[in-house]
């Protein structure tokens, strides 16, 4: 009995072996070159790569891999440029080129670089020795073949296709952002036009902004200076530009009340700009002689040396009001606490999320993130600026609708998967639009 059982087991075992061997032979024997092989220019790129596309084949797995060969001529020596596992690199992995269609998972797409025409560039160092390095000039017509390999078996295709990358005239994958950009342009223009027709629009109160004048007034009463910091970034950053236009307002008030304004700067260009802005304020107030460029100076260009410098000023000059407007990093609390210790009234405004809590705690008023950008419009009361604020609100309104409708539609799309918009489902439509490729 038992013996027979054993016999069966042995038989089954051998059978299994035979089958597996046969299967192995099968797979390794018939390596097939993928069909429908083509080389195309990579869509919407700056012309430095090509796409190799071929069909998905049966029996793809991670121990079977595709190889791409490259050569400079039709019948020249082809060398391997890329190798990837055969169950990877489907068209569906690259939404930026093919979108979210179902069919994308039926073909492979692999990005390959062409052969480049190089030129030498000689660089002479101060020591006098000359180094030569290569620089790309333009891509050449290059030929590609595909091969497939499994284990030790390799099979290279015979058809060699050629391609040369072209520079495309448009980034299709950025269509969505372009759409939004143009749309926002539109509403900004529209609302600016409208604001010029009726300048007095309603704006809700923002306590921090109303406090600015109050702080300046208080400083003048106490006959103490005012300190204004434009933050971490150079004038090129938008937050700094907004800060500067708030500074313009502050400077105007200061010039009227005839008190002193100290602006320690972290960036040279920002410094010169601040000087111009403040000088103009004094000129408009009719007392250019009162302007002292020495009060608007460059302290130090490095984060913490700037911090330490401003701290020292606070401790020595004891300003009655400190303004911290712009982007701030770790130094935020150091500045704010030192200022609080000197008993100054402090108004902060920053767009850097992680510093807002510290400003809220340590300062008297804090403009939260985008309020900083709105402040100049509030203070300037210039119809055009207010118009742009309106436009912002409209933009928010649209984001609302997009959020709500989008969520509802997607939720529905889950329940009714086969509802079609144009040729893609709602799901894909929305996904398509709100995806960064």
């Amino acid at each position: 009995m038992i013996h027979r059982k054993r016999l069966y087991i042995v038989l089954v075992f051998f059978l299994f072996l035979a089958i597996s061997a046969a299967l192995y032979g099968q797979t390794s024997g018939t390596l097939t070159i993928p069909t429908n092989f083509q080389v195309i220019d990579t869509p919407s790129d700056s012309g430095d790569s090509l796409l190799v596309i071929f069909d998905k084949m049966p029996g793809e797995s991670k121990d079977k891999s595709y190889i791409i060969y490259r050569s400079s001529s039709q019948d020249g020596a082809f060398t391997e440029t890329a190798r990837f596992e055969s169950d990877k690199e489907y068209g569906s992995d690259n939404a930026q080129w093919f979108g979210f269609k179902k069919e994308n998972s039926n073909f492979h797409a692999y990005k390959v670089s062409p052969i480049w025409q190089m030129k030498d560039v000689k660089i002479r160092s101060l020591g006098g020795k000359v180094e030569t390095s290569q620089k790309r000039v333009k891509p050449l017509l290059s030929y590609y073949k595909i091969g497939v390999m499994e284990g030790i078996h390799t099979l290279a295709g015979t058809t060699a296709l050629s391609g040369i990358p072209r520079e495309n005239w448009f980034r299709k994958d950025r269509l969505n952002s372009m759409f939004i950009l143009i749309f926002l342009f539109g509403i900004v223009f529209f609302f600016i036009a409208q604001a010029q027709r009726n300048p007095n629009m309603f704006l809700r109160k923002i306590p921090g902004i109303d406090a600015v004048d109050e702080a300046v007034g208080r400083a003048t009463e106490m006959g103490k200076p005012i300190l204004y910091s434009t933050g971490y970034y150079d004038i090129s950053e938008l937050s700094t530009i907004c800060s500067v236009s708030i500074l313009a307002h502050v400077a105007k008030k200061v010039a009227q009340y005839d008190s002193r304004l100290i602006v320690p700067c972290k960036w040279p260009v920002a410094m010169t700009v601040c000087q111009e802005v403040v000088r103009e304020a004094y000129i408009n107030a009719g007392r250019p002689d009162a302007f002292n460029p020495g009060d608007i100076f460059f302290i130090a260009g490095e984060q913490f040396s700037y911090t330490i410098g401003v701290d020292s000023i606070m401790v020595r000059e004891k300003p009655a009001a400190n303004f911290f407007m712009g982007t701030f990093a770790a130094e935020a609390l150091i500045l704010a606490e030192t200022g609080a210790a000197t008993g100054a009234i402090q108004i902060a405004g920053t767009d850097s999320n992680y510093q807002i809590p510290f400003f809220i705690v340590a300062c008297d008023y804090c403009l939260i993130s985008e309020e900083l950008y709105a402040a100049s419009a509030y203070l300037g009361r210039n119809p055009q600026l207010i118009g742009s604020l309106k436009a912002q609100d409209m933009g928010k309104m649209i984001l609302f609708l997009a959020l709500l409708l989008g969520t509802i539609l997607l939720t529905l799309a889950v329940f009714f998967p086969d509802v079609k918009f144009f040729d893609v489902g709602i799901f894909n439509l929305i996904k398509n639009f709100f995806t960064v490729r």
Partner: protein
Amino acid sequence: MNFLKRRFPIIIVLLTGVLIMIAYYVPHTPFSDFWDGASKWYQIIAGFTMVLGVVSLVRNHYRKIREGKQGFGYSIAMFVIMMATVAFGVLPTEISPIFGNRSGSVFMWIFEYINTAASATVYSLLAFYIASASYRAFRVRSLDATIMLVTALVVMVGRVPYGEIFSNYLTDHIGKGLAFLRLDNLTSFLLNYPTVATRRAITLGLGLATVSTSLRIILGIEKTYMGGDN
């Protein structure tokens, strides 16, 4: 002349802005080069402008020294160390290994033992200031302040052993069902949902603000930064 002073810069802003926007969508030759080049250009311009700042700095301190104001000694010390740093840093390493900015050079020594030490210390002042700020200003003035305070406390206490003792006591002795009250769970909830929501909203709003601001600038509506006429 007035055109050159006022209009021309605005026109340049407009041109550059629009060109770079186009370059973002058009990867073809003139634009793509513009896109690549501009950042390098900015670096170069900024590099030159560093001198502006230094000149301003030198001017201020030179005034101090010339007028012999009290504490001009510090200014002198500053000059000396600044000159030394620049000299050792700019001279090429080919002359001697103590020059240049390789590790082992004087420049790096100064950087490591003065600059790094000082900046690390200033940075670490934060720990002290956080303490004083928490004591001085972290008050339950209003509902909002209270919420903020409680959240901060939960997150802080949740990260130290005592917090965990509390949490374990909660789950082990009072009831398994209270697991959601464990401080670490509360913390992770706070960090994963309300925080994320707020951050997103703020980012979205900021995004809109940025776009409209940059439009204001490009269209020359916001031109305070240009300063006055004269």
